[in-house]
């Protein structure tokens, strides 16, 4: 879509294959529109377009024989650069067990992702232990128990039903006792503006000292992605992002917004409701999807 838009702009400059700064501005307006329609946050778009402008008004680009390709190339490069280097999740830290905290807004896919992650780790020869510390939502603990039993995954369900931190701590103790190397903690969905629940995250973290804090976000999120991810990061120091429901047709601009504001990579994409529907995040595929 972006490529086609550029072709129209540059086709409009009949006979003139070389770029003028004015043509670059027209192209930048199209880039801005494409990214906004893809749900990238408008402030992130502004900063991004400024970066592209700096590179595009370079003499090499302006004098190039294929200006449209040049500008599209710059946009692709800058997007890929933003998504950053992939880093291994659950690398060896020597800590046993490793503790992964899944956090995020209501309904983003944390519980499903917890089960998928356990399945993923098991396929890599690890021994994960799942625990739900969602003591709030009706049947949340049951939901994880059912997913675990359907997949023959170990799920810890202590008698403790009041304190999320105590449930998490109990799971870590069980993991140590029984030789599980990773504890996956599924937390309750919460609003970043709910101070009581954001403080609960501090309590859980204090109790189990997580090695990973994964922010689970819905790929169809719009402009608000920056606010929620930003606040979760400020309160809970996110170490990685999981983008869910990528099997839908949302353009996924929230991915760019979140990475821009949190500054850590997206580690996984959720691409369906089944246990195996978890993939390593592929930045190049995301960029193609975002540019339509």
């Amino acid at each position, binding site marked *: 879509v972006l490529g086609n838009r550029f072709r129209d702009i540059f086709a409009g400059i009949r006979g003139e294959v070389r770029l003028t700064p004015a043509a670059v501005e027209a192209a930048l307006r199209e880039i801005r529109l494409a990214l906004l329609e893809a749900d990238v946050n408008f402030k992130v778009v502004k900063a991004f377009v400024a970066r592209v402008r700096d590179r595009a008004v370079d003499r090499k680009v302006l004098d190039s024989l294929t200006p449209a390709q040049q500008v599209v190339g710059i946009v692709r490069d800058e997007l890929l650069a933003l998504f950053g280097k992939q880093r291994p999740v659950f690398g060896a830290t020597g800590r046993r067990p490793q503790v992964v905290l899944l956090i995020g*807004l209501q*309904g983003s896919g944390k519980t499903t992702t917890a089960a998928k992650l356990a399945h993923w780790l098991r396929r890599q020869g690890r021994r994960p232990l799942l625990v739900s510390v969602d003591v709030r*939502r009706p049947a949340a603990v049951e939901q994880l128990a059912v997913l675990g039993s359907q997949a023959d995954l170990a799920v810890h369900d202590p008698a403790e039903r009041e304190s999320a931190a105590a449930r998490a701590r109990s799971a870590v103790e069980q993991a140590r006792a029984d030789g599980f190397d990773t504890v996956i903690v599924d937390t309750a969905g919460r609003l970043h503006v709910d101070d009581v629940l954001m403080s609960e995250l501090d309590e859980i973290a204090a109790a189990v000292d997580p090695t990973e804090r994964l922010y689970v976000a819905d790929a169809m*999120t719009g402009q608000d992605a920056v606010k929620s991810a930003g606040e979760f990061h400020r309160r809970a120091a996110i170490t990685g992002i999981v983008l869910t429901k990528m099997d839908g047709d949302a353009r996924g601009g929230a991915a760019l917004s979140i990475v821009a504001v949190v500054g850590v990579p997206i580690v996984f994409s959720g691409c369906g409701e089944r246990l195996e529907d978890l993939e390593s995040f592929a930045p190049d595929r995301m960029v193609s999807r975002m540019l339509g």
Partner: protein
Amino acid sequence: NEGAAADRRATADSIEEVLLEADVGVAAAARIMAGIDAEAAAAGGPPLRGRVRREMLRILSAPPPPPPVAASPRVVLVVGVNGTGKTTTVGKLAALLQREGARPLICAADTFRAAAIDQLAAWAQRAGVDMVKARAGGDPAAIVYDAIDAARARGRDVVIVDTAGRLHTRSDLMAELEKIRRVASRAVAGAPHDVLLALDATVGQNGLVQARQFLERAGVNGIVLTKIDGTAKGGIAVAIACELGLPIRYVGVGEALEDLLPFAPDAYVDALFT
């Protein structure tokens, strides 16, 4: 004069940013601003912001719904993509309708999601409303049929159906909704009378795609905008009202039983500009 035009341009830009940040979307925001620009330039009248607010109120204020046909029972379907708050909304809606004097029955037609029925049963208990679930096998349409039967047998006048979350891109799952509609319409004249699309207030432009698809395949005739107690404004509902004429019927304002309110356009527009 140039100064005034520049000022108006700056104000228009900042208003357009408010609309964009609220997820109203580029196209709908441009349509709203174009309409305003024309009249402001002509009349030089009241401030731009007031005109935009009036225009949005006009878009969002649906004509009052026709008086409900005396249907027995009335059938309400709650549909939408995954995680938008359908199950919670069904519980809240049952409580709300009961407070208004109705005698609701809840129908658990999500046979897929782990512990979905337990989750809805908890809500039914909190609301003090009966729930009908699968006897065995679990074809959602069959459960809806059973619930309508049960409602007649027990003298209930409205059946509220919780359905499984589904992406509009899954044609097989959308076909399942079409089947539920067909079965309901055969059981009660005019059913389903309300098909509410649960839309997460945080959704971006994909919300418009969802609305188009669910309108076409599930016959959606209203929207419940959930999680509006967060910081997201759910502005895609404005684009949806603009393009598809779908009214917002309720807003979800939290995770407790009483956290469902009838939609109030002026409160919504005020909050959008705050």
